[in-house]
């Protein structure tokens, strides 16, 4: 794959300090510090309602944090919007799939390349050679990525929303990768998939990481976490409970209590 960046990433790809999100009186995320290292798969786990999705939304500019600061690489702003985050190198998928109605798979994935397009308005109107070449280059990348995430070639021209659930998740991953991200945020990428799909997408995530992208994911499947994640952050009631390698964290009695306590 020559379409994904292979250059070395800065040590920390995504950093948060003192991140807090308050809804009315409810503190959904409290004083969260997070370091997602380049070239790594970092998982956030925690029982339902622990604040994982809120944290990820705050990290990706979806939910303006009440407190705290976020860095992408070494770039930071006081208030990020999600398109600024994307421009700075963060791409994400969604827990509830968000595709664009009416667009084909190819068109959907091409939207991911939005920030890479340089063609000016006059260039588009004249349809200069440079604008056409740019479009063609991105279209080729899109086709490659569609293959890379494991979608059959025949799906390229199909409406993205007509695909199976699992394949829609793959389209979202391809769309996110299209922006050549430094950080890829996956919100429950394996939800609703069968065993073989899970294995395939897990492998895909591993390959993405090998190509130099930092992956931050929310996941519930502990087997997947054990096999994929190099670092795991456990959240409980909006706070970071603990952090470490998958084996350390999953054997931590506090983590087990957090999950069991929820089950009572």
């Amino acid at each position, binding site marked *: 794959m020559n379409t994904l960046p292979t250059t070395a990433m800065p040590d920390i790809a995504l950093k948060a300090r003192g991140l807090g999100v308050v809804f009315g009186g409810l503190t959904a995320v409290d004083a969260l510090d997070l370091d997602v290292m380049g070239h790594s798969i970092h998982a956030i786990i925690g029982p339902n309602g622990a604040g994982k999705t809120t944290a990820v939304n705050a990290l*990706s*500019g*979806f939910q303006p944090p009440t407190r705290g600061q976020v860095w992408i690489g070494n770039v930071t702003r006081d208030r990020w*919007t*999600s*398109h600024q*985050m*994307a*421009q700075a190198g963060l*791409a*994400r998928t*969604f827990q509830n799939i*968000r*595709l*664009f*109605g*009416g*667009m*084909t798979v*190819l*068109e959907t994935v*091409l*939207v*991911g*390349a*939005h*920030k890479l*397009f340089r*063609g000016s*308005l006059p260039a*588009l*109107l004249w*349809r200069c050679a440079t*604008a*056409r070449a740019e*479009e*063609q280059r991105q*279209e080729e990348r899109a086709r490659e990525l569609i293959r890379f995430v494991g979608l059959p070639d025949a799906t390229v021209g199909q409406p993205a*929303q007509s695909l199976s659930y699992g394949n829609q998740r793959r389209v979202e991953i391809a*769309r996110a990768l299209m*922006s050549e991200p430094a950080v890829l945020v996956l919100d429950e990428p394996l939800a609703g998939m069968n065993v073989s799909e899970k294995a395939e997408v897990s492998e895909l995530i591993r390959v993405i990481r090998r190509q130099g992208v930092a992956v931050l994911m929310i996941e519930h499947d502990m087997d997947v976490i054990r096999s994929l994640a190099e670092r795991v952050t456990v959240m409980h009631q909006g706070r970071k409970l603990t952090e470490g390698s998958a084996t350390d964290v999953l054997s931590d009695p506090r983590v087990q209590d957090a999950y069991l306590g929820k089950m009572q």
Partner: protein
Amino acid sequence: MAYFEQLVLNGLLMGAIYALAAVAYTLVYGVVKMVNFAFGELFMLGAFLTATLMMDQVTLFGHAMAMPGMGFGTAAALAMAMVAALGGLIDRIAYKPLRSAPRLAPLITSIAVSVVLQSLAQAAWGPGSQLFPGQPFEHVPAIALGPDLVIEGTEWVVMLAAVLAMVGVHLFVHRTVLGGAMRAAAVDPMAASLVGVPVNRVVGAAFMIGSALAALAGLLYAQTFQFTSATMGFLPGLKALTAAVLGGIGSVPGAALGGLLLGLIESLAAGYLPEGAVYQDVVSFVLLILLLVFRPQGLLGKKEMNSAAPGSLTSGRGVRPGRTMAAVLAGIDRLFTAAWLQKPNAKLIVLAAAVVLGLAVPSDYWLGIFVMVLIYGLLATGLNVVVGFAGLLDLGFVAFWAIGAYFTSILFIDIIQQAWGLDPSAWWWLLYVNLLAGGLVAGLAAMLIGYPTLRVRGDYLAIMTLGFGEIIRIVATNWVGFTNGPMGLRGIPSPQLFGWVLDTPRSQYFFALALAVIIVLFVSRLTRSYVGRAWVALRENEEAAEAMGISGTRYKLMAYACSGFVGGVVGVFFAHFMRYISPANFTLFENILILLLVVLGGLGTLAGPFLGAAVWLLFLQLSMHIPLVTEFPELRFALLGILLIALVLYRPDGLAGKARSRLTMG
């Protein structure tokens, strides 16, 4: 001193009617979260039906008919019942099937319903204003509040009736089982239906009650001002909406308060501002726009009102068609997905056909019609950029058409001809400069107007753009020194090319065709690039689009600018083609018509706007041979409205929807 009190009294009288209408609005909005654009027509029908029932004899559809000549009270009650039934029927046919459809769909059907009702009323009762039969409260004693201050009997009866109706609604909503069911359905229809509330029937009931109240407001209005007309509902309908938003839409006491305040504000503005009476409506529209931007929750409303429903018209499922309808739709699809149309040179074939048509058609009359097809097709193309591609329902688009037309006309007539005393036809080349400059000015205006609308979505966006469009039209009508007011500007020179005057329909057809080719090329190159993909992405899922690095602000403004640019260019050509323009060319009705043409042809397609324009204008011509239509030309608009409702229900993609163009350059 009595001047002020008199203004307050007038304000309270209008306020009471606005309040009543606003309560009707809010009742429906609260339950279905949808702005019913047909509201003003229910208001109008209440007035017309009451007047008709009160007369001994009436002319309906050109036929004299005997009428019962009822008293005001009986007639009013009967009219309210009839309008309530109609409201229920409309909900059943045009809104209920679209409850889970994208927000744009019921908005468009409600606009279509409004067109149908207004056209039918014009056909039935005639287009002009009619005197209201009788003054039912003329013998009610007036109340003297002071030496110079008297409340007429009619006035206090209207206020009392409005107050009683509003108190009744309030008690109904809070004290009855059905009212409770309505409140439950308003908060969460899904949860309400889970606990056994028959949500659809409750919504239907809300529609019926709201319609009856609208009719009551309408008939009180008509008897106060002693007239009825088919278009009388439009302004009060908008005022009612303003009042409802002012009070906090969804809140009954809020609507009542908003109505009274709006009545007072308008009355005082008319009395104290310079030229206030002329700009009284502008005051309301400005208030509406400011509210939508800065305090959409109004005085007493809740903050989370008007949450956006994602998705566009085109991604909707529509209604499953019956067998005949399915066959018709399949036929249409075959037509537009025919093999030759899919070939890359299909566009050239269409263009060649258009050229042949222009050369071969002998009739100047028909060539003139074809020019209008191109003009409407171009306008629809401009509107399609914002509505079809970017998904922003813009009801103020005609303003940009007007800006282009006035830009070139003022330059040629006010400046070159009158101020400088020169012959405008010597300046023929200026037209070509103006096509670009007028487009740019209109595009800039579109961005300026678009900017404050960026924060609002869906139906609020539609209302806000409508408000802007109306403000521009009212200003153009009343700024006489600049635009010559309602009389318009005459003697705009025909287009010329190096001494060759393009004043025959044939030459103008080719001029318009050249313009159409350039503009379609312009639009297609944008839509088939990353810009077009960004627009569609924003339309389909704004949050996901933002997450892909697309700045909603930037690309929405760009869509407004492009749409305004196209509108402005067409406006410049239109002025030189018609050689006479006046504010009557640029009404909201035109905007609605253009919108319907885009939907008819296919939102978000390149051919759709022209297809819609061609179908409509050819139908306008051919239908003149249908006997009933010859007599009542308004019926054609009713037919268009009905067609549109059917289309949105069964085929939200429009006629050419299945032949949607790719978003890649290819």
